[in-house]
């Protein structure tokens, strides 16, 4: 397959960015302006806000980020196999089976450790992450 022509894509990018910038600019120009007694406060359903929103978050979100990096990186390897599955043949198939088996083993481990359970569940008892005081 010959290399695709790329300049229309560049043109498209410029057009898309122009649309986005245009929308922001036009609404800035057309929008009304006002200043009320409480317009400088964060919206919290009518309750006066205390403290900023720079809070400490549940460590669960960091776990998800780490899992994403691990699994998405491994799926990138699977992508390269998928594109050449016929050329790689049965030998490649066996290799990817081993690879996926390792992946599944990792998933099973995380599952058993309770890393995939969200919140302070009490299901199962183990020496997992859940029981070492890291909870939602």
């Amino acid at each position, binding site marked *: 397959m010959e290399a695709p022509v790329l300049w229309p894509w560049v043109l498209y990018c410029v057009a898309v960015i122009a649309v986005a910038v245009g929308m922001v600019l036009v609404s800035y120009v057309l929008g009304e302006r006002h200043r009320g007694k409480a317009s400088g406060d964060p919206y919290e359903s009518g309750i006066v806000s205390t403290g900023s929103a720079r809070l400490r978050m549940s460590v669960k979100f960091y776990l998800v980020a780490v899992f994403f990096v691990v699994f998405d990186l491994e799926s990138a390897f699977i*992508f390269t196999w998928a594109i050449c599955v016929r050329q790689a043949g049965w030998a490649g198939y066996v290799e990817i089976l081993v690879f996926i088996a390792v992946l599944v083993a990792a998933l099973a481990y995380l599952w058993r450790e309770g890393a995939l359970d969200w919140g302070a569940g009490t299901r199962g008892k183990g020496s997992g992450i859940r029981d070492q005081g890291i909870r939602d």
Partner: protein
Amino acid sequence: MSEAIRAILTVVVVLLAVLTVAGGLVWVERRLLALWQDRYGPNRVGPFGVLQVLADMIKLFTKEDWVPPFADRAVFILAPAIMVTTSLLSFAVVAFAPRIVVADLNIGLLYFLAMSSLGVYGVVLAGWSSDNKYSLLGGLRAAGQMLSYEVFMGLSLMGVVMLAGSFNLSAIVEAQRRIWFFIPQILGLVIFAVAGLAETRRIPFDLPEAENELVAGYHAEYSGMKFGMFFLGEYVGITLISAMIVSLFFGGWLGPWLPPLAWFVLKTVVVIAGFILVRAALPRPRYDQLMALGWKVMLPLALLNLVVTGGVVLART
């Protein structure tokens, strides 16, 4: 017609068409939801309320363009722009008909996955920069949900890639001349549709903006057209996922009698209506159920689909 003019026309028409469809979808969705819920929906502005979109646009553009004094100004303005840009950019690789495509990249599918990953930034930065507790929670939830579903979204499409032997969307459509891929890849289709719903954060996966707990989630502090841009991003996103489902699983532009473009549009409209029906029919799960579904059900299923498809493809060659 020279190649250059043709390419420029394609760029302009694709962009305008996508923006129009995404805008029109607001009206279509509200009318369809109303139909399924036994009410009228917007029917006052223009015939059947079609001009509602225009009225909404005028309203959004003339509302106060509010940047809260406590927000991180630059990021706050950048976030909705990222949202719109990434979802629109994905359309560059969608093949609407033979040769009607902005950039016929041979890594089209990877490009689409990359752009949908970048979309996470729009939501997360919006939630973070607002410096509002609702927004922060919404942004984090969105990040967790989109990252989790991103993983098997790519994997679910690899069955199609194996059958077609290409990442190029035109090639994938052409490979479906004999059989549309939703028959051998029904599992892949289901997984991709679920992942697509989660990526566009629509009901039943709209936990980042669950109204009854987070008010509006990551865009709680947004107003005017910046708020509108998040909606535009969502509707462009749903159009994109539908167009991808049609290209990858339902034979894209292939079909008898009608011209290719007509088939593509027709199929896409049906899939979009299906997504709206899902919204009308399903309730919202809890966040832990959502994450459990992603990691414990969808990811293993996607891997299983991969292994089985690989074996079948090899056995048949």
